[in-house]
Each structure stands twice: as structure tokens, then as C-alpha cells.
């Protein structure tokens, strides 16, 4: 068993009075896709930035953070040489075209010129941007920019790929394309660390996730196992509290009721029981389905919005 790629032990980060990351510990083994989930303001991006040295963690209380055995505060260049970073905000050089953007980064990695041009061809092909060599950044759609930044992160053949919300705001086709590419990279042995608030994204590509809220870790594990262990397998969604009030008196006691928002969710282990409940409602007033990661996420982080969202 090889050493984990990232080891975080009791990592803390404050911005003034705000504790963005609190006593966060986790390890990322080699060649897995590790996801960090949480609402906005959960501390995911701050944690990501600390991993590649773009933020500094608090010295006190003493924690530990190593990536490939290097401390990002001591040797960020070694970590960044072995990693590719896809930041949350697109930061392509608008003054340069697609190819030049990648070429400049090859210079940052000190990749020899000839090799760089080959690598650029290869990666534009991989991210399905082959016809965009000379395109200006302004001409690219949001999805193309995102793919270009992923290509940029892959230039130096990284062993660790760090992606901060890689598919936020993208259409479903591009999201699926990016997921396919990430799966392919993982198969080749790359370690992937990503943040997301799309439950489906975590479910589709992550081997292991942590769910964070307000800077703290609430749950950790395989997404499928977490659902099995922490939430009832079925849920009956009732459209409004008024409809729910017609049936609320006579519900079987083993059901769990979540009245967080306008939709009332009734969770249960037995599909048959939920089906019997639903038979007292009119069609169109309810939806019976399997529970998913989103239900788990809302159960853990609370279904109402916090101030940072």
C-alpha cells in the first residue's frame, strides 16, 4: 500500500473572526477521486487553496498538511510541479489565444518548446477542442473555457489533479464530457481532488467524499455506502404543507418527516408503507422515489440556507 497523496490533520483557517476551516482531517489515497461537498461557504475552496499553497493555514493550533510528503507552506513549488489546478474562477489570459495560453503555461513548467507543442495538440484533442487552436478566449463558450483550463492543468502530466467546482454553471452535455474525461484520467492512475455542490457529480465520479458545512467535516465515506448507512432508501415528497396536513395525523410511526422547505419529505425503509400513504393523496400531489445523495446532504447540512449562501 503506497503512501497517501494528501494527509490533512486538524487543519484550521480563520479570516478575521470567521473560522473558514475547523479542525479538518482527511487523507486522499493514491489514484482515487476524492470529493469535497458542501454548501457555499463550507470551506471547500479555502481547503483546496491551502493544498496548493495559494492560501496559508493557521499556525495555531498546530495541524499538519502534506501533499506528496511536502508541506505546501514550505515547498509549494514541488507540490505545484506535480499537480494541476483548475481554480473555481476561470483565469485564462484574455490577451492571448488558446494555444498561446497553453504555451505560456508550458514555459511555467519548463517544458521544452517542441515537446510543449506536441502536448498542446494532444490535450486540445483530449478535451475536444482541436479546432480551437487559434481561437481568442472571448470567442469561447463557458464550457470550452472550462475544458481549456482542464487541458492547462494537465500540461505537465500531473499526478494530482485539483478541481474547484469544475462543472458549476455548465450544461449537461459538457458536464458529462468532463466526467468522462475525469474517469479516464482516474483509470490511468491519476489522483483527483474536487469540490462540488452537485450531488450527482459526486455520485458519478467520486470514490470517496466528505460532506462539509461551516468549515467542519460531517461525514466521510463512499457515496453509495453513505446513502445506505445514513438515510432511509425511499422518500415520498409531498408538494405543500397543506396537502401534508391532510395525512399527517395518521402516519405510521416508523417514518421520518422533514418539513424543511415547502416540500415535505417523508422518509421510510419500506417502499410499500410509503406507497400506502401516497394512495390517500391525489395524483400530482406527491412524488415517490429512491433517496439520493442530495437528501443525505440536506439532512446533514440542514435544508434551510445559511447566511453565506
Amino acid at each position: 500500500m503506497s503512501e497517501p497523496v494528501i494527509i490533512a490533520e486538524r487543519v484550521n483557517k480563520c479570516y478575521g473572526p470567521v473560522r473558514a476551516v475547523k479542525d479538518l482531517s482527511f487523507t486522499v489515497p493514491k489514484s482515487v477521486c476524492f470529493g469535497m461537498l458542501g454548501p457555499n461557504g463550507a470551506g471547500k475552496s479555502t481547503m483546496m487553496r491551502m493544498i496548493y499553497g495559494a492560501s496559508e493555514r493557521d499556525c495555531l493550533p498546530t495541524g499538519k498538511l502534506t501533499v506528496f510528503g511536502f508541506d505546501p507552506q514550505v515547498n509549494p513549488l514541488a507540490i505545484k510541479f506535480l499537480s494541476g489546478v483548475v481554480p473555481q474562477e476561470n483565469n485564462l489570459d484574455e490577451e492571448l489565444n488558446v494555444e498561446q495560453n497553453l504555451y505560456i503555461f508550458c514555459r511555467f513548467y519548463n517544458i521544452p518548446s517542441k515537446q510543449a507543442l506536441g502536448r498542446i495538440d494532444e490535450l486540445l484533442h483530449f478535451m475536444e477542442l482541436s479546432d480551437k487552436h487559434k481561437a481568442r478566449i472571448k470567442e469561447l463558450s463557458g464550457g470550452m473555457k472550462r475544458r481549456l483550463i482542464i487541458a492547462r492543468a494537465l500540461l505537465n502530466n500531473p499526478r494530482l489533479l485539483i478541481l474547484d467546482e469544475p462543472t458549476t454553471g455548465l450544461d449537461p452535455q459538457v458536464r458529462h464530457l468532463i466526467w468522462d474525461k475525469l474517469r479516464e484520467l482516474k483509470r490511468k492512475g491519476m489522483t483527483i481532488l474536487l469540490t462540488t455542490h452537485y450531488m450527482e457529480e459526486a455520485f458519478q465520479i467520486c470514490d470517496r467524499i466528505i460532506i462539509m458545512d461551516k468549515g467542519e467535516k460531517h461525514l466521510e465515506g463512499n457515496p453509495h455506502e453513505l446513502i445506505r448507512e445514513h438515510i432511509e432508501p425511499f422518500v415520498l415528497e409531498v408538494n405543500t404543507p397543506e396537502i401534508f396536513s391532510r395525512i399527517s395525523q395518521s402516519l405510521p410511526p416508523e417514518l421520518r418527516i422533514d418539513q424543511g422547505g415547502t416540500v415535505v419529505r417523508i422518509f421510510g425503509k419500506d417502499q410499500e408503507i410509503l406507497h400506502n400513504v401516497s394512495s390517500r393523496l391525489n395524483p400530482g400531489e406527491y412524488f415517490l422515489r429512491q433517496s439520493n445523495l442530495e437528501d443525505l446532504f440536506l439532512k446533514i447540512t440542514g435544508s434551510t440556507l445559511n447566511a453565506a449562501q
Partner: protein
Amino acid sequence: MQPNKAAILYPPFTKRISSVWYRHYRVYTKNLISNGLPPFLEPLIFLAGIGLGMSRYISEMGGIPYVTFLATGLPITAAMFTSAFECSYGTFIRLEFDRVYDGMISAPLGVGDIMTGEIIWAGTKGLFFSFAVILVEAAFGLIPLQGLVAPVIGFLTGLMFASISLLITSFVTNINHFNFYFTGFLSPMFFFSGVIFPLENLPPVLRIAAEFFPLTHAVRPVRALILGQFQPVILFDLLMMAIFTVVTAWPGIKRLRKRIIK
């Protein structure tokens, strides 16, 4: 865990700063005509104005023809303004609007590498701008050909004003505040550093004050170099330029690090 051998191969310091320099070079040369032509046009316009207009009234200044006096100061103000622009407005836009540094910081570059590359780039622009002025002046026979070595001082001037400007930028949170820097600091220097008239006959207070202006220490060496008149004070000037560069670059980079590494 033993640090991995491959990681030791991240690019050395010189490669890192030259890659940052290369980025700026590529962006600048992308618009070759609009960026590269004005440095040659500006001295033409200026010298035409002075030569055709003002020199009819003022024929001599500091013991040399007035046109020559001005011609030996202009290369340095060109270097000053271009490097000051580059590391004030330019740096601020890269920092706050274009987020260029956020991209760079995800590559194996540190803030020190990025800012050192930036200063050397501004020095290069100082070299190019002063060269353009000197070339035009030499072509018109206003200065002797030996003046063509003077852009070296333009380079040093660029480094110095880049460093000063980075320190200013590290304090600026609103891009309009640079107006104070340009009208409150750079413009007065243009008048009181010996570019358009000699310092010798200024009131004593201003004469002493002028020795604290960075520009004064750039003007004397370039004039000496163009006219081939070496004086010992020039060594003092070069030392002062080095001091101004280091004492502003160091805290400037340190403060900018805090704005980039949050």
C-alpha cells in the same frame, strides 16, 4: 515519506522569472504596431515642438544647446513613465481584474518569482523606450552616436520605477488612487530632477529635495553617458538607484504576497 525525486526538478529561479517575463513579452508584442510605434513617435513630436518652437527663445541651458539638454533627459522620463504604468495600472489590472496572478500561482511559481519577472519586464520596457528616444535623437543628429549605449540606464530606471510602483500598488485598493501617484509624485519629479532645467540654480531647499527624487539619480548618469562626460557623482547615483530599487521592491513584494496568498 521521502520527498520524491521528480519534484526536485521544478524549474530553477532563473527559468521561473524568465517564464513570467516571456508572458509579458508575448502579450506586449501581440499588438506590435500600437505598442511598438508610439515610443518612436513621441520623441519626434516633442523634439519638433521644442526644436521649432522653444529653442528660438532659449538657445542654451547648462552650458549646452537647449535641444541637446532636453534630448539627454527625455530618454529617462520615457523609461520612467512606461515602467511606472506597467507596475501600477498594469499590475493592478492583472491582480484585481484579469486575475492573471491567480493563474500563475497555480503553476510552480511563487509571488517572488512573479514580481521579480514583472520588475525585469518593466526594466526591459524602460530599455526599449529609452532606446527608441535615443535612436530618434541620434538620427536627427541631436546627440552623438555614443548615446546608443545609454539605454542601459533606461533599463535600471525601469527596474527602479517598477519597484517603487509595486510598493505603491500594494497599498492601492481602488485603481483611481493611482492619479495621486502620477500627479503627486511622478509629474513633480519631471520638473525638479534636472530633466528640463539644471538643478544648480534652484533654491537650496529644492536642490536638496531633488537629491531625494529617484529620477535625479537616473538623469545625471544618462546625460553623462550620452555626452561622454564622466563625473564621480555618477557612481553615487548608481548606488542610489540600487538602493531605491531594493528598499521598495522588498516590502512591495512582501505586501503583494499577502494580497495574492490569502
